[in-house]
């Protein structure tokens, strides 16, 4: 992976060129300096920019005495740098852009101008120090890289000669020595740097004409080498700089440590970039090999099909052959039989001749025998039938089904999005999710259910919202929780939080991977912990009229034999009683929730709670429905008995005709008539004992239907009333219904 300057391709050459370009002149940097913002520019370009800005021509760092300074020793390859254009300078001075100074003043009198250099690379104005550009260090490393790059590019145009070979056989130089500042061929180098002498440790570099001093010296203390690095200022320091106040308390480390650290960091970073490139390459290779493999599989499948087809063809052909042989055999046999029949022709000719016999006694004698023979022949002929079926009705082929199967042969598809069964899916003490795959979907091996509790509580969303696609991402801050490897087509999610909205979705998985998600379903969890109970028969039952079933969670109100008989006798009116059913638990504290389903065809059903003692009273003395007390039109003040200041010892909602009657909260009667709500498939109730409040909900959307108050000074039981025929199913705990782990 080595990007060696010596062995580098065209695109890389261009890429490196960009690294080596001066942003001002857009050519390769010449004598670059490092600005305080860490970017490099040619020193002369920097001077020009400052002049254009209006500063006095800056003091440039002194050029060291090198072979290139004098025109004689400069390589013909390097063109002489044109001097800064003086007409530009004059223009600038004339327009008076120079602030505060004009050419007459002596340098000493002017206060040092703090110059702001507009760095073209970062676009910011960087503040140069007191000595301006001279404060900026030369970027020797960049110079060296440019040098090496130039060398590889222009090799051959002008070779560097060894300076020590004795003429006439002067050889081309293969190395330069930075310490000797000369160029050598291999032999001369060895001669002049013998092992065992101090010259042996000189540094080899590529042959070059410009032997710049190879060390950076401090800008302020020209004799001092930069041996330290200040981490806080990110500057190189010499031993004298280090002692300055400017760097007191700063993190200063020896240059060797900074060298090591930075080298390690850069190497790591470079390796990381390489590794990334490598990994992309590896992924491409993976895709290629994956395609090849899959293609191979496809071909294998098809060749398998072909061989099976060939096999079937062979087998069926053999069957045909067998049948053909058998029938041909039979027919041939018949044919030979027929041949024998032809013998009759002889007999007939004889008979014809016989008939010509006129002598009656001779005729009779001969005809007697002939008659027998003819009878036999006729018999044979009558019983003849083909012994083989010429029709090949049993050998027809109908390949329409196979053709259909073959033409729909396809890569295994992932299962389609499952369809959630919204009737069976519900939220109670746990979430129960039920679904099925569309008919034309590929089968799924197992499913993955995801659920997410949406913050915001049940009240935030009401009504069931079916969203297209995955809009679950907006607004959710938590991630989906997963139930993996769900066999079957239903799942139970326990450990719920009450009074929340859960979003659920499911997708199937088979060999081809995961299929699409189903649409999301929103389930509202109950506002309080679920109360589980059964319908109680401890006070005795109206056994005649109420039948309990299904573990005493189901009740049906029937007329009963007595009423049946009574109705038989009566024709005009019938006494209907209100039959009370009470739960086998009573609530003494806290908030509890339960749900039930009232059969829509029920006549009259009341659902609610009542103080246990009071209910017991009523049970034994059922209130008369026909009493004028309860008739709102009777003129009696039916509301007067129920005083508003103390809550009643019961709270019920009455439903019938598929509707619920919602009692008015205030005394005012509106002209629109009584308020009803459609009876939901499941009805939820939540009792807050401490607050004495009973809330009725649509159990699916948890939309509040009605809220009432009840006297909770004593234990309170859930209760139900049947008036007339009806049925009621208590919602059982999902934990009990589905014994999932």
């Amino acid at each position, binding site marked *: 992976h080595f990007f060696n300057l010596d062995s580098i391709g065209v695109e890389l050459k261009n890429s490196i060129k960009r690294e080596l370009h001066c942003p001002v002149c857009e050519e390769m940097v010449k004598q670059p300096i490092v600005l305080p913002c860490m970017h490099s520019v040619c020193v002369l370009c920097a001077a020009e920019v400052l002049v254009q800005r209006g500063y006095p021509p800056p003091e440039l760092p002194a050029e060291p005495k090198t072979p290139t300074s004098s025109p004689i020793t400069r390589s013909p390859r390097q063109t002489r740098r044109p001097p800064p254009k003086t007409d530009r300078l004059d223009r600038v001075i004339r327009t008076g852009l120079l602030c505060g100074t004009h050419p007459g003043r002596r340098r000493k009198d002017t206060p040092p101008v703090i110059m702001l250099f507009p760095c073209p690379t970062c676009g910011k104005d960087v503040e140069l120090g007191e000595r301006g550009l001279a404060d900026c260090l030369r970027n020797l490393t960049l110079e060296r890289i440019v040098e090496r790059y130039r060398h590889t590019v222009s090799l051959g145009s002008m070779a560097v000669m060894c300076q020590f070979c004795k003429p006439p056989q002067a050889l081309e130089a293969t*190395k330069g020595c930075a310490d000797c500042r000369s160029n050598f061929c*291999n032999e001369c180098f*060895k001669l002049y740097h013998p*092992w*065992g*002498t*101090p010259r*042996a*440790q000189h540094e080899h570099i590529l042959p070059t004409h410009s032997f710049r001093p190879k060390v950076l010296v401090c800008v302020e203390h020209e004799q001092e080498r930069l041996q330290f690095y200040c981490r806080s200022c990110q500057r190189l320091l010499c031993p004298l700089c280090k002692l300055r106040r400017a760097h007191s308390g700063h993190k200063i480390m020896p240059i060797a440590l900074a060298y090591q650290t930075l080298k390690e960091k850069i190497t790591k970073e470079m390796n990381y970039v390489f590794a990334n490139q490598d990994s992309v390459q590896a992924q491409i290779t993976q895709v290629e090999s994956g395609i090849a493999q899959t293609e191979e599989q496809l071909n294998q499948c098809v060749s398998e099909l072909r061989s099976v087809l060939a096999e079937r063809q062979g087998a069926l052909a053999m069957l045909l052959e067998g049948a053909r042989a058998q029938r041909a055999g039979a027919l041939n046999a018949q044919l030979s039989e027929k041949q024998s029949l032809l013998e009759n022709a002889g007999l007939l000719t004889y008979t014809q001749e016989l008939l010509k016999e006129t002598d009656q006694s001779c005729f009779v004698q001969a005809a007697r025998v002939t008659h027998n023979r003819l009878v036999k022949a006729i018999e044979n002929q009558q019983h003849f039938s083909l012994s083989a079926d010429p029709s090949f009705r049993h050998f027809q082929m109908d390949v329409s089904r196979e053709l259909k199967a073959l033409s729909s042969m396809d890569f295994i598809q992932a299962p389609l999005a499952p369809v959630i069964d919204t009737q069976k899916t519900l939220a109670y003490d746990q979430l129960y999710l039920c679904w099925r795959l569309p008919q034309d979907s590929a089968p799924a091996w197992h499913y993955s259910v995801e659920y997410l509790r949406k913050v915001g509580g049940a009240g935030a969303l009401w009504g069931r919202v079916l969203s297209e696609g995955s809009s679950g991402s907006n607004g959710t801050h938590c991630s989906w929780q997963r139930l993996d490897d769900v066999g079957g087509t239903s799942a139970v999610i326990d450990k719920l939080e009450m009074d929340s909205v859960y979003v659920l979705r499911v997708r199937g998985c088979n060999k081809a991977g995961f299929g699409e998600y189903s649409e999301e379903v929103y389930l509202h969890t109950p506002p309080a912990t679920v109360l589980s109970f059964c319908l109680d028969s401890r006070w005795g039952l109206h056994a005649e009229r109420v039948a309990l079933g299904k573990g005493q969670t189901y009740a049906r109100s029937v007329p009963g034999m007595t009423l049946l008989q009574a109705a038989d006798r009566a024709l005009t009116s019938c006494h209907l009683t209100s039959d009370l059913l009470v739960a086998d638990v009573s609530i003494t504290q806290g908030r509890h929730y339960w749900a039930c389903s009232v059969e829509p065809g029920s006549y009259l059903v009341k659902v609610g709670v009542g103080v246990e003692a009071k209910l017991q009273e009523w049970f034994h003395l059922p209130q008369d429905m026909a009493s004028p007390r309860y008739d709102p039109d009777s003129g009696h003040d039916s509301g007067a008995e129920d005083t508003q200041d103390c809550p009643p010892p019961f709270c019920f909602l009455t439903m019938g005709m598929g509707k619920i009657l919602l009692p008015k909260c205030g005394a005012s009667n509106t002209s629109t008539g009584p308020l009803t709500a459609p009876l939901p498939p499941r009805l939820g109730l939540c009792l807050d004992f401490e607050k004495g409040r009973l809330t009725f909900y649509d159990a699916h959307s948890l939309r509040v239907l009605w809220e009432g108050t009840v006297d909770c000074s004593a234990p309170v039981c859930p209760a139900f009333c049947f008036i007339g025929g009806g049925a009621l199913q208590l919602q059982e705990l999902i934990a009990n219904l589905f014994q999932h782990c």
Partner: protein
Amino acid sequence: MALTQVSSNKCCDGYQKVFEHDSSELKCKMKFAIYLPPKAESSKCPVLYWLSGLTCTEQNFITKAGSQQAASEHGIIIVAPDTSPRGCNIEGEDESWDFGTGAGFYVNATQEPWKTNYRMYSYVTEELPRLINSNFPADPEKMSISGHSMGGHGALICALKNPGKYKSVSAFAPICNPIQCAWGQKAFSGYLGPDKSTWELYDATVLAESYSGPELDILIDQGRDDQFLSSSQLLPDNLIAACSKQKIPVVFRLQQGYDHSYYFIFSFIIDHIKHHAKYLNA
């Protein structure tokens, strides 16, 4: 410091040379052998210092160990100094083969009459590297050290006493715990005096117990049939125990059938040079 070349032979495309110089630490003329691989002609190479054992000179290693081929392949300079100062005319220096001449033990002696000349520790860790770095194309940052028997002891203590100076260390049948063995007790009492606490400064096992520094990867080869192993002169188990406690990685290979001679070194020198090359050429 002027170096005089004593001999030069081309070997495995490189050069096996011997130089002589005036040593400022040892105050006498010292010879050392240096192998320069072919790579040294074009760039700086890392250096492996080899310390020889009792009775050896700079010649034994370069003629008997067969290290030049591997050094040439891996581009490593191998420097093999002498084992003690020579020609100093100290009384008693030639009395025993395990004390005095040829038995410097790589310590800086503090007792008379040895303390003026017998400063092999400073010679090996300071003077010699300085000399090599300024007169040969050596990479001053890349040094490793190795040795045999007493030289193994020298290599281990130089590495343990100078954390970070040597990139790797290895040894053949080294004297691991000199203060517990007869050789060490004789040499240390002679060079360092009766105070045993001064001896601990030059004992690899003691130094390992308190070593803290960059991770040191130690390779030790020991012949199973080595007579000095069975006579409790080498005591490698003590060093291994100390290293395990301090979590210093040590690879200790007990080689079946091998003894203490240079034939043993010859057999495994390539493995050791490879071990060093891993770190020197990294």
